[in-house]
């Protein structure tokens, strides 16, 4: 089956920084892929490469079979892009912005106006149609950004952190709009640093960190994989560390994460804790710490990336 978006081994460097370090992606038509990662993980760079705004240093990517480097013009006809860097003109009114894009896409003046008003009505912006965009609220602004990427009815939509900085109400309004588009059959690539957003919208999630894909799966698979809970064991004697690792690993059926002398493992089976206690006792291993903590989605993220969501402030993408 042909993928709507397909990427293999994407690499992008900015000077000393490697923003993408071999990213693979595959998105089926009509689905939503959530690209999840903290600030600076490379999400924006990935979207910019796929939207033809940046050329990768290595690897290939295609949108509906069109190469994003060699057939960039074709890709641009298929993709609508919304992100903080792909913005509308603040000096113009809402309707002027949408007419401008319609005209650039080759629509006759009348058709462009008609499409602009159609979108403004759909996005609940009709009342603000003739106001300069700089007077819009944050939520209105994002809705217009989204409308601007839909003027040409693209079959693919790239949404780069569409709700960052929005209040909860504006956020859920935007989610609803995105769900409606998906219902119409649009393929969506969504980047976000919010797990609940990926959980709410995405059919499949790709977690990236430091330019690498570190996990892939449906939201359910990811939660199961990282466990609803995690078990941490710290042996009293450092010499017992390998015994702890092998016992915990054998019982949990995954290889545990070792940080210093702390052994952690995701827990999906409630029988794990008593089993671990029994086996450690049998082996004569004394532990100073044995904790079972239920993990929120944020901890799932922490488990995968090794640091909490949004902990890195370093910005990514092209220099401002």
């Amino acid at each position, binding site marked *: 089956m042909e993928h709507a978006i397909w990427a293999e081994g994407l690499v992008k460097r900015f000077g000393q920084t490697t923003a993408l370090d071999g990213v693979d992606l595959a998105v089926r038509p009509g689905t939503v892929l959530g690209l999840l990662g903290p600030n600076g993980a490379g999400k924006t760079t990935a979207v910019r490469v796929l939207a033809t705004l940046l050329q990768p240093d290595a690897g290939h990517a295609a949108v509906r079979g069109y190469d994003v480097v060699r057939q960039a*013009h074709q890709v641009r006809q298929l993709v609508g892009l919304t992100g*903080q860097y*792909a*913005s509308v003109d603040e*000096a113009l009114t809402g309707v002027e912005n949408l007419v*401008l894009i319609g005209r*650039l*896409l080759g629509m006759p003046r009348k058709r462009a106006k008609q499409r602009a008003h159609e979108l403004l009505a759909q996005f609940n912006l009709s009342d603000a149609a003739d106001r300069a965009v700089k007077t819009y609220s944050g939520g209105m602004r994002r809705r217009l950004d989204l409308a601007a990427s839909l003027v040409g*009815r693209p079959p693919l939509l790239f949404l780069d952190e569409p709700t960052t900085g929005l209040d909860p109400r504006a956020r859920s309004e935007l989610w609803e709009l995105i769900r409606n588009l998906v219902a*119409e059959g649009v393929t969506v690539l969504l980047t976000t640093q919010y797990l609940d957003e990926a959980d709410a919208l995405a059919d499949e999630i790709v977690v990236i960190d430091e330019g690498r894909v570190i996990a892939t799966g449906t939201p359910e698979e990811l939660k199961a994989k990282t466990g609803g809970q995690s078990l941490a064991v710290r042996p009293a004697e450092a010499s017992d560390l390998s015994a702890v690792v092998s016992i915990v690993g054998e019982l949990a059926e995954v290889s545990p994460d070792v940080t210093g002398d702390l052994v952690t493992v995701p827990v999906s089976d409630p029988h794990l804790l008593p089993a671990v206690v029994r086996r450690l006792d049998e082996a004569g291993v004394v532990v100073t710490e044995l904790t079972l903590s239920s993990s929120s989605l944020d901890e799932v993220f922490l488990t995968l990336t090794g640091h909490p969501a949004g902990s890195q402030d370093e910005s990514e993408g092209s220099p401002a």
Partner: protein
Amino acid sequence: MTTATIPEVSPRVGPVEGLRQSLTLAWRTVVQVRHNPWEMSDFSIQPIMFVLLFTYVFGGAIAGSTSDYLTFMLPGMVVMNMLFVTLYVGQGLNTDLTKGVFDRLRSLPVARWAPLAGRIAADQVKQAWSIVLVLGVGMLLGFRLGTSVAGLLGAVVLLLVFALAFSWVAVLVGVVAKDPERVQIFGFTALFPLTFVSNVFVPAETMPGWLQAFVDVNPISILTDACRGLMLGDPWYTGAVAVPVVQSLVWAGVILAVFAPLSVWALKRRV
């Protein structure tokens, strides 16, 4: 399923389509001016103020009479104003780059050259407006054409051609500058000396020899000579007017040949 139908995909943008896109983007710049009267006042009120100040404050002292000075200075004032108006190309481009509008445009299937071409086309509209304005105010104050309407039209065309070339300097400044304010700072620190150390406001003969040497090669002086020749003729400009006209065109060609590739290169590096 309205949105998801696969559109017809074309392999490239034709030149006619690219031109139409450039004009659409030029239209956008003109609409921006309508929404932002401050910019309008910048290139409308400021030149009027300059004409009035120089004529009535300095004119008598420099030329002995305000009307003589107005005649002498006005062609140069048109040249100076033209340079400052090109700055809006840089400022607008810089705003697009910093606010993300430029990336939106690049994500659309439009000709790669359309955003720059649109800016420069819009600049020509602003240029034409400000030339007409300065000349109109001058005529109200008593400026009279010494040659013919053909000479005047020749000067206007020459100014527009020079503006076309010089706007590439503004493009470079717009690409390199961190924010739109810095484009303005460039205007004040580079364009003021360039226009004042010329024959725009006073004849070069009164300046020290080393300064005269610079004034003589300054393209602003040459272009001002050409405009004086085309608008006023004898005694304001004596000699063959073709000389400064051709020299101005050569200067325009050189500026274009240096700054257009440099700007495109800088833009590719920035985005």
